């Protein structure tokens, strides 16, 4: 399982590099809608590249790690999205599951940005499905 934390600027820049735009139902559309595009060749871009390289999400030659690229593609252009709101002690947390061909990427919004976990294992998908069905049954 791969876990990656991205700031909104980093996610925006990765989409820029991949030449992707979030689809209307993408969980990235709203959070990245308020982030300006990163100008090419700027010092901001250099800092973003360094930070992503440190975390293994960017390879030499400014190539996006193919696993991170796949996850961003899943999130930017999903086939199906489950949007779940988890209520508990400490407030509510929004969790988005972006599906393509049965595989899913989990995206959680955090104060510092986004936390991605992928790919969703079968056992976890079954559990999420149970949560969703139980929630529907209870009228949630």
């Amino acid at each position, binding site marked *: 399982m791969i876990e990656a934390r991205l700031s909104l600027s980093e996610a925006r820049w990765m989409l820029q590099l991949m030449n992707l735009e979030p689809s209307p139902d993408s969980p990235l559309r709203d959070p990245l809608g308020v982030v300006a595009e990163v100008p090419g060749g700027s010092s901001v871009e250099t800092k973003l590249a360094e930070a992503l390289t440190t975390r293994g999400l960017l390879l030499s030659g400014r190539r996006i790690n193919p696993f991170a690229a796949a996850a961003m593609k899943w999130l930017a252009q999903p086939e199906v999205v489950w949007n779940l709101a988890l209520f508990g002690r400490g407030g509510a947390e929004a969790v988005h599951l972006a599906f393509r061909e049965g*595989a899913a990427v989990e995206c959680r919004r955090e104060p510092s940005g986004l936390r991605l976990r992928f790919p969703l294992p079968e056992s976890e998908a079954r559990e999420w499905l149970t949560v969703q069905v139980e929630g529907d049954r209870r009228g949630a």
Partner: protein
Amino acid sequence: MARETWNGNWQESAFGRIRDFVGSSPAWYENVAPSDVAEDAYLLGIASTLFLRDEDSGAKPNPPTSAGKRTSTNTPARPLGVPPFTYERCLAAGPEASAAFASATSGRFGALHRESAAGAGSAEAWSEAISALRRGGALRSEWPSDECRCDPPLETFSEDLRACSSAVLRKSMHAFKIGFGLWGRWESP
């Protein structure tokens, strides 16, 4: 000045007696007819149902009807999630990494792995990408579990008691609101 009278039916008079009973002595029921007591019991019985949920009343859920079943049994449900994949075996290029890369390319480990393998292009680049993720601390051996995801239990007795008391108060206020709403009509002669 017009004298206001209370023209009520038997339910309204029963509510009035209940209202008076709040400030009266416990011996109040000794001076009323058994039929009045029966009326009050009838109303209290209805009011008590406000505190019940359907699942508490002993009612059995309706059996699933055939109309709700999935009719197309030929199409199997699409599997969700991907089978577990051990990234550690792909850290160094070699036959094992090549075999894992071939499996991922064929889609055996899900569409996301297939996409990433296609993006890598070769087993060496695939190993390099996984190694970079490991160096960056992004690889996890297992999916972390979220405790208390669906229904977090109450932690202490005091919290339990407080939640129970607030629920009883809330339901009582709801019952009073319904009672005052049913109180009746005032008519001036």
